[in-house]
């Protein structure tokens, strides 16, 4: 089933998937235990002539232990899941590693606009370069995308990178990722954003650093 997920091409995607599988194994065991018991009891304790049910109230500690001991295990596993999850959350959404490339990502009905700093290396001035619905990044470099929106809430979703972040008008929300594989990927919008929501789908190109520089220069020359 691991192949079922879209191929992971980010440095932290494996950690996100790792938590998924960690939880998957825990709940699979619980699933078969609980459902198995129910089915077993349905067969074992079906009504038979002359056989009365046990009058058990669960009002003594000895009886309640049958519920409380599994419950204690649930609490311990919950804590495990949270502690392991906290690390991954911090890695993806907490402190970001320093950026090699910073891009502004603007959601609008119904595509993405990506703005790169021009020759001066700074965002937010005249020489900025704009790329319509295409995000180009170098492989093996830390990319920051500062997300915002012009109209409604969109959601910047990189399924192959296990990354998702809403782009909210009036807010600048930074996310980061580092691609591990050259290729072309998709940037669907994951939040209902109007009649064009379905099909709001940007393209993400991961280049070698040299190709990326080339693309950036061509972009600058075209302007």
């Amino acid at each position, binding site marked *: 089933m691991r192949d079922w997920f879209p191929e992971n091409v980010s440095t932290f995607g494996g950690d996100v998937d790792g938590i998924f599988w960690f939880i998957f194994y825990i709940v699979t065991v619980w699933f078969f235990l609980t459902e198995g018991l129910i089915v077993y009891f349905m067969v074992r304790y079906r009504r038979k002539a002359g056989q009365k049910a046990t009058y058990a109230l669960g009002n003594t500690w000895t009886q309640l232990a049958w519920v409380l001991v599994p419950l204690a295990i649930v609490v311990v596993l919950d804590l495990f899941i949270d502690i392991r999850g906290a690390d991954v959350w911090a890695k993806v959404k907490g402190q970001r590693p320093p950026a090699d490339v910073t891009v502004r990502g603007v959601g609008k009905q119904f595509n993405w606009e990506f703005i790169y700093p021009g020759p001066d290396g700074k965002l937010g001035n005249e020489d900025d370069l704009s790329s319509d619905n295409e995000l180009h990044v170098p492989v093996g470099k830390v990319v920051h995308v500062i997300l915002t929106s012009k109209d*409604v809430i969109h959601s910047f979703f990189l399924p192959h990178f296990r990354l998702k*972040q809403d782009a909210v008008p009036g807010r600048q929300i930074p996310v980061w990722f580092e691609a591990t594989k050259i290729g072309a990927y998709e940037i669907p919008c994951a939040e209902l954003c109007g009649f064009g929501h379905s099909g709001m789908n940007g393209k993400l190109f991961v280049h070698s650093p040299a190709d990326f520089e080339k693309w950036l220069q061509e972009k600058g020359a075209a302007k």
Partner: protein
Amino acid sequence: MTVEAQNRDGREQGHHELSFVRRYIFSTDHKVIAKQYLTLALFWALIGAATAYLIRWQIGHPDTEALGWGFIEPQVYNALVTMHGTIMVFFVAMPLLLSALGNFLIPLMIGAKDMAFPKLNALSLWIFFLASVVLFTSFFVPGGAAAAGWTGYPPLSAKNEYTGGGYGMDLWLLSLALEFASFLLGGINFLTTTMNMRAPGLTWFRLPIMVWMQLTAALIFMLSVGPTIAGAILLLMDRNLGTTFYLPDGGGDPLLWQHLFWFFGHPEVYVLLLPGVGVMLEVITVFARKPVFAYRPIIYATIVAGFLSFIVWAHHQYISGMDPRLAMPFSITTIIISVPFALVIFSIIATLWGSSMSFPTPMMFALGTLGVFIFGGLTGIFNGSAPVDIYIHDTYFVVAHFHYTLFSNVFFGGFAGIYFWFPKMFGRMMNESLGKIHFWLTFAFFNAVFIPMHLVGLRGMMRRISNPLQYEFLKPIEPLNMFITLMAILLILSQAVFVINFFWSMVRGAVAANNPWHANTLEWTTSSPPPHDNFATIPVVHRWPYDYSLPDSSSDWTPQDQSDEALRAATR
């Protein structure tokens, strides 16, 4: 009021005959009101199913003509998605589980003649009816029904230029505000009635768990809905009066709505769940002939879960742009809420241990609720974990998850309740063979729809997109989507078995005895259906509701109104 005074009033009221209109339409009898809610809920369930059919058609066969409808425009698709959620949560689940079952059962289970405020009860029904009319009308206004999702996130919901819709959105807000008002009035009635009108001897810890669940649900609803009503009014003002509470151009913040909405929205999930859990426990104890295991811990756990439900709301917003440092506290509370629910589930399983089970239709649906709900609870752990949510948020994994939790309690639980209390409601039994067929078809097709839907979600397919073929990475799963669509259509069609059984049994079903299931609770001590004032004499309660298979008794059930002396006399 003393018992004698209540009985005297009952006799007096029994004398004058009410006109048809007062009796069946503008009635103040809680049983009639409950049936009216049931009728409305079943009507809306049909509309909800129709929207589900069109949504599934579009996903399974994008941009082809849906059978019996035609092409589904993207704008219409968004309206369908919005209305499906709104209808199923607010116009099916709540009226069915709370208003219909709660209204019918609370007075009967506590040995009261009616609700504390019968006229208020009628008022809440008619406000709900008005809300229904408004919502139904919104389908036909220019621009169509609301299309901003059932969560109505602004700015999309705040300006018509963003949705392309018209005042369908205003009607949507208005109908929800009316609906909330109706359920507030209903909740006041539930609480007041149970606090003040319990039969003599019926202490709090002799109440059936169903009543506890209804009360907790009503209380959670009343405490949480306020901020959302305020939020809805702010949104109406943004739309019509030029305010900018949610619009950043004027200094507002879209996230404000999300907090106001989910502060109510998550407790609301438990409002829908708890009555289903109540049905499950009542039905399972009766057909297992065994007392509920850990009665008090279950009640305490329910109250704890109710409390926790107020501090988990932001798990809907991990990736919304709120401060990422808030995610872990909410992740912890969310995953901790699995503990009280695990206690309830373990206790139900422990109730099955050492029991003596028979499997008529209500029991099948109750066990179905249990089995399906466990699955939904377990997949909730994935969503509750903030890092996993980064990937699965707003995908079909979430859709599949909440259908497992809500469909289980609303439909499996609702059906268990209807099959179980139908004899008390209508004085006739439902057909057992049709019931079994209905159960197996529903169970099989439900799982055939929603297990694959988890896989679709894990592939990354987003909610609320109308055409997955527009995405390269989703193309491989189109066969799976077609399969889900086929199964969903079969799931909807198999509900015809229920509809036929329901109406046929109402007229032709075998006449029901007062207590066909040999159950202990008070509603079974009166006639089927009960008279206008429920009880010829108000019962006196001597025990809790779950004295099944008492060791010294020759019978395997002991009604709540049977005294110890009577029990000893019967055993001797």
